């Protein structure tokens, strides 16, 4: 059986991290605004650019989701221009005060173009200030991804292909996860884990336990399952007119089962990390694991929200299922086509699904980093003793 928790015997005094988690000698972890360890990490502007990207891509996914919800994907028949105009020169009066589907589709394109520009700036910053070669190439990958995503969206319009619209929706979430990856690996916390290798670093307490391989596997499975949910949801939203009812029903069933799997994984990981934190306080050590627990609880909260939004999405789209019609209100619920609030619920389900994916990705990256740095400390110590 896989060992979920492994023990790091390196003995240090207090621990702290960029999230302000610190341990007192008395054995309690607290969240403080304590100073960071070591000098300011290089590439702070790169990190800020990554944060800007993340902050822009989520709204971009929202608007893209609204494009699908309002069936506005073909509201502008040409690409890369808009009705013959250069994308940036399309008359703003016609855009802002024209038909709603044109408003969201053209707005989606404009925001995507802006994201592309920020991605270019990110690459430039990376090659200027980032010392790690793989991170510099990560920004290049990100730029290639955003260009590819734009091309995919364009080809979807030119070919009027529903399947490509579905692919465009799926790859958007990968791009979002890449942005969050860049944000995570350029963060102060990430750098501080490196400084844990220095003799000055106050990292672990006696008997500190790091996330074991089992939790890492669970977190990886969570990312995969969260993305599988994205793909299944995209297939449901972009279902082909001639798809069979049996196939659609299986998709829905798989979507529901996977939702339970995602919830179970998120709860299991959070519970494991919580036991780690508890064990930390009992042994009077560092509380770096708190930096893992917080995103873990965030994933759990988001998954619960997502399940609620998923149920609301079904009701908004297809009405209250018969088994849930338990009274006059539920049995007389009326589905409304193109209703604004309902459209926000449906698109909110898409956007929250993206948040679940990227938060799980963020958690996994932190766990890998945390475990890797702690275990790399263990090896020389063990051989030395």
């Amino acid at each position, binding site marked *: 059986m896989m060992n979920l928790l492994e023990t790091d015997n390196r003995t240090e005094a207090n621990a702290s991290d960029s999230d302000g988690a610190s341990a007192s000698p008395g054995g309690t972890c607290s969240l403080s605004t304590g100073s960071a360890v070591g000098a300011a990490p290089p590439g702070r502007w790169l990190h800020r650019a990554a944060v800007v990207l993340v902050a822009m891509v989520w709204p971009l996914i929202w608007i893209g989701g609204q494009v699908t919800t309002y*069936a*506005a*994907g*073909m*509201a502008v*028949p040409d690409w890369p221009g808009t*009705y013959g105009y250069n994308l940036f020169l399309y008359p703003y009066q*016609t855009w802002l005060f*024209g*038909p*709603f*589907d*044109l408003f969201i589709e053209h707005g989606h394109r404009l925001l995507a173009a802006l994201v592309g520009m920020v991605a270019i700036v990110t690459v430039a910053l990376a090659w200027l200030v980032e010392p790690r070669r793989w991170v510099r190439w990560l920004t290049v990958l990100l730029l290639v991804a955003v260009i590819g995503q734009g091309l995919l969206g364009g080809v979807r319009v030119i070919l*009027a*292909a*529903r*399947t490509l619209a*579905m*692919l465009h929706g*799926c790859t958007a979430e*990968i791009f979002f996860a890449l942005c969050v990856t860049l944000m995570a690996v350029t963060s102060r916390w990430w750098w501080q884990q490196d400084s844990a290798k220095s003799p000055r670093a106050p990292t672990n307490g006696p008997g500190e336990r790091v996330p074991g391989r089992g939790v*890492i596997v669970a977190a*990886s499975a969570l*990312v*995969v399952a969260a*993305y*599988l949910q994205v*793909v299944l949801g995209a*297939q449901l939203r972009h*279902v*082909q*007119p*001639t*798809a069979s*009812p*049996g*196939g*659609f*029903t299986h998709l*829905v069933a798989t979507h529901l089962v996977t939702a339970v799997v995602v919830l179970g994984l998120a709860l299991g990981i959070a519970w494991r990390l919580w036991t780690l934190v508890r064990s930390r306080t009992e042994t009077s050590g560092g509380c770096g694991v708190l930096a893992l627990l917080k995103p873990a609880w965030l994933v759990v909260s988001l998954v619960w929200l997502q399940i609620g939004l998923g149920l609301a999405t079904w009701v908004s789209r*297809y*009405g*209250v*299922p018969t088994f849930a*019609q338990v*009274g*006059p209100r539920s*049995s*007389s*619920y*009326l*589905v*409304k*086509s*193109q*209703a604004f609030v309902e459209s926000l619920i449906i698109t909110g389900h898409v956007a929250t699904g993206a948040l679940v994916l990227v938060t799980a990705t963020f958690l*996994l990256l932190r766990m*890998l*980093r945390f475990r*890797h740095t702690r275990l790399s400390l263990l090896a020389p110590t063990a051989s030395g003793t």
Partner: protein
Amino acid sequence: MPLSRHLVFWSLSLLIGWGSGCDSPTDRFPPNELFARVVVHPFSGEFERASTDVGRLVESLFGTPDSPSIPDRLLAAGDGEPLLDPQRLARASGPVSSDREGLNFGIYRAQCVVCHGLSGDGFGPAAALQNPYPRDFRSGVFKYKSTTRGSKPTRDDLRRLLVHGIPGTGMPSFARQPEDDREALIDYLIYLSIRGEVERRLLAWSVEELGYGEADGPTSAEDSLVLLDSGRLASDELAEQVDEILEQVVDSWLRPEPVAVPTPPTWDVSELASAAARGRELFHGPLANCASCHGTDGDGSAVTLDFDDWTKEFTTRLGVAPSDPIVRDFRRAGALRPRPISPRKLSWGNFRGGSDPDSLYRLLTVGIAGTPMPGLLVTAEPGGVGVTPDQVWDLVAYLQSLSADAPAPAPRSAE
């Protein structure tokens, strides 16, 4: 495990998860294999031949989902206003798009196809998860309308349905859609229904009259519905028969008249209560006998086992039990799993055909087409066989009294 190996692992997992293909073809309406199987069932022949030949013939008459055409006879039908408008039909059909002025195209595919299917067969992707199942327009039977049980709905009926939707089902209200879009949808719905009903009648005719039900198929080329290179049938006689079938179906859509509803009595509050009490007696009594299906006080407690006509067509009417394994063959041909129909729980007050007095009066006297809900026999004088119009109004008063949410308190109140 090193970070790089992890990255490779879940990058591959994500790529595999895509599992996508190309757009499914929508260049042709799927043939009605279900009804072909139904009509061939008593015979020894193969249903594929009938469905294929008839499908091609119907395509020559009605075009394709992307490019529907209207037969000349249908184009000329209608007094003054044509039954179908080619421009509206063009807007409702085809792939989804919109123009710079916000004019929508492909409205049926954007709004309806996921439940009602490409050919209006009620076999759309999400159909199996709806209760009741989405309507199959091809049989030309519509449940909620102002006309007699066997008649087609009026254009106003369809308009009302699109605006109000059907609460408690997956059928949405399209009140927020532009009126032009709703009108285009009505045209397309009528088009799909006529097209589907013509296809059904041609299938029945081909199997019963032309020999398509036999193992060898039609005995002569003169009886074959295969189109010649010229796009015509082999004989003028066949063409005339096809034209006649088309005419019959089109005529059924012309001038459907609403059922006349007599003027309701004028009641004050106490008379209204008395009417509701009389209505309750009728509801539970042998004359109307509503409680036998809808339960005491309409609480839905009665145990029933019945099916709608769309299900009966491939089961009980062929002598096949809905649980028989042979039903799987019909399901493969486009039928949904037989599901017993449940009488409405009237005490919840959600009357799908409309909660206003006139709609309830019509529903009680006409029944609901395609379902086991019968219409009451209305007689001028009270007797042992039917109910008088006043008694129907009593029932309406009772039905409305069942629900606190009923939109109108009574048929008519003097106060």
